[in-house]
């Protein structure tokens, strides 16, 4: 299940990334290294909520959670576990 979440989050990140060199999205790599700016992160937040039908509470909308694919996957997994 977690691998599915990783794959989906990676796909969403890749879609929002401004990198054009086709570099693979590394799960632990920082979003900023993929060319994410502040509005890109907000777009990603919206994509993730829409795709997984989850809502991040206020205390989860932090630079730490939106640092990398890994950190986002951890948060999404926790939120999905909470809602199921």
């Amino acid at each position, binding site marked *: 299940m977690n691998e599915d979440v990783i794959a989906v989050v990676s*796909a969403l990140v890749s879609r929002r990334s401004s990198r054009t060199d086709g570099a693979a999205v590394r799960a632990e790599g920082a979003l900023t290294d993929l060319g994410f700016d502040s509005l890109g992160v*907000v777009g990603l*937040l919206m994509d993730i909520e829409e795709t997984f039908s989850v809502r991040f*509470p206020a205390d989860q909308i932090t630079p730490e959670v939106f640092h990398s694919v890994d950190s986002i996957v951890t948060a999404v997994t926790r939120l999905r576990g909470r809602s199921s």
Partner: protein
Amino acid sequence: MTDDALAAHGYHATAYGVPMAEHATILDALRYRALDCPNEPYLTAVAADGGQETITFAQLAARSAIAALWVRGLGVRPADVVGLVPTNDVLSVVTLYGILRTGATALILSPTDPPLRIDEQARAQSAAVLIRSPHVRPGPPGISLVSMSEQPGSGDAGKWSDPDLSPLSDAVMLGTSGSTSASKIVVQSQHNIVTNAEAVRRHHGLRGGQRLLSFLPIYHANALNLALFGTLYAGAHAVLPHGFDPLRAGRVIEQTRPRIISVAPTILEALLQTWRDPDVPEELEHVVSAAAPLTADTARAVRERWRVPVLQGYGLTETTNFSTTVPCDLPAEVYREMVTDAAVPSIGVALYGNEVSVRTAAGEPVVPGAVGEICIRGHNVMDRYAGNPAATAEAFRGGWFHTGDLGYSVGRSGREFFFVTGRIKNIAKVRGEMVSLDEVDRALRAVPGVRDAACVRRQDRLTGDSVVAAVCFVDAPVDVLAALRERIPAVAVPSRIVVLPMLPRSRTGKLLRPDLAAKLDQLITGAEPTAVVPGGSGPEPPVVGTFSAAGDPQLTRLRRALLEGGRVLPAAPEPVATPADPAAVGAELTRQLAVRGIAVVSLPAPLGVDAFIELGHRLGRPVPERDPAVQPYVARGVVLNLVMSGGPTDDVALQPFAGGPLSLHSEGSGRPVSRQFRFIVLMCRERSGPDSEFQTVLVPMAQVARALLPRQLDILRHTRYHGQPEAPTIARDVGGRVVFAFRDFVDSVLHWECTLGGATEAEVNDTLAALTRAMYAPAVPLGLTWSAGTVAVIDNTWFFHGRSAGRFLPGAGRHLARLRLLEH
């Protein structure tokens, strides 16, 4: 100054240069504040890590004097130009005032520009020295960018004395936003700056002790003139985060407790997403939004969640930023009409010190409600474009500054409110910055390996516009984006490159930009990664299915109640009496449409066919009626005469002419996106029978959207009529509104396809049933009743429409003439 330039700087009877403010220069204001309220805070800068640094007015005076000594030590003399690449921090602000105190002109450059471009701009203005924030990279060898961190941290400020400055002397130079290599450099005088500062002080009631937080960068006219100069002038306290970080911005607001927040709409959109459970400070009174068009949805969301109004402002670098702003003291109903219920929120009323006028291409003022170019004159109008007398003369032609923006005005409560409808030139507004599409085209075509290229703008919920480029390569693809990043500002670099074999061009080689936009829209929408099944591994093929509402008893009941209930629905709206002249009628209809998506006027007599078609051309592009079944009713190829003279019929093609009800629909719901009708124009030639008969029923799409769950809207955003790949999805987002392309299929069936991963056939069918029921159960359905001479225009992106009918009465009937229009 030329006669035109003099006229463009006049304000009613007050000639340019006559004092309009308490202080003649911004340096006078600085000296005054340092004596009047030395220990009050002037500026709090918030660093990326949340750390805050605050300086008082006295500290600003002392530190800027030391900065001035340092700048003079670099060889700068009064009237020199000094390049400054600032960031949002105390040191940059102190250095800016230091430069101004030497009597030099600060050429303010964007830290997001490539170093080569910064250097080019400084050289073009013969800058004596180029100073950068320590947060800006030094630049390659050969480009001399002095770091402002080299200035001493302390010194004897008493050694500095300000030179005498003329109020009309140059103060700052700024590139027109979104600048490209061909951009123009605006020169703002000291008089411009203090006049605008006085205007914003009056408009917002700014005074000592109040905090104004700006999330905008100080290398833009907005933050420079409002957040820095406006607060200094008023003795208020500026709060300046290092930039906009949506993950921390809510916390900054909660900690710094501003009375006013200054933003661009993209920032508001992002904050609405990320500032959850906001602890809105009691001090917060309003939000000022400028730099790009605000949507009514955004204004409404802010009002609902934060309990404060958004006041949209408008201005250009050339007009020292603020020419108009929505007033702070509007009665609630006027605010609703002008902002949250308007199709496009108003930019407000003219500020002190400048006049705003909507004018024709020939330079004549238009009648209220008619669209023309927004022109400005007053003491806030820039001195000139530096080194570009031809562009200056062009901008001031006819004694007005020409903004290049289209708009109109509406009188309310004794004030004239202005609205912007678009740009004259090929401009995109990305993140609040103007980007010339022509300039990006040129930069694209200059990339080696590119055979042809052009770009278009697409609407983006977060960035406002985004730039998308189509590129044809000579041979193998090359990295276009990398090449562009070296040549044009980051904001102008396209967000997406689409490779095409050729571009749509006319026989003469002219780019057909609307065709290119439609092509790219189709490619991008089709290629957009679809949402993914939670827990799934990737996009899936579309689900297809068949929907039928036949036999849905609840729907049958609702449909009958609305269309056959015999009640007269609330008028939408009452017709406005207008002379039977296509120009006047067009102006009034345009005004009403912009506010509520429906317009109704009452003429003394119906227009003739030609005048009716002329009216259509004023509103859009009439579309020929090609259906063979209706040809007997068509006039001049585009006017359909809906003559209702018989009872109900089952023949769908003839139902518009029959006496029975007409089910709710959006017009042409299966047509391609680029050929979706925007307006339906109806004019009544004759009518007999009671009002309860033959009403046109209008159901606001916004009410339908509100009745649906977010998941249902998502499904509809991914569902379209099967086998019609160019048709829009049933729901789509246009300008912040949900627009439907859908009809009630009554007893027939709809074949559909849905690309939303995880959506099942049953779920889509349930959603379509929910949508159809929502169409018939709005909180407030509206009705149009007809009499000879009534003209109504329905915005097909705002309302579903249909027709009610009671008992058919022999002899009752009506004759409506109809035009269907595409958007201009």
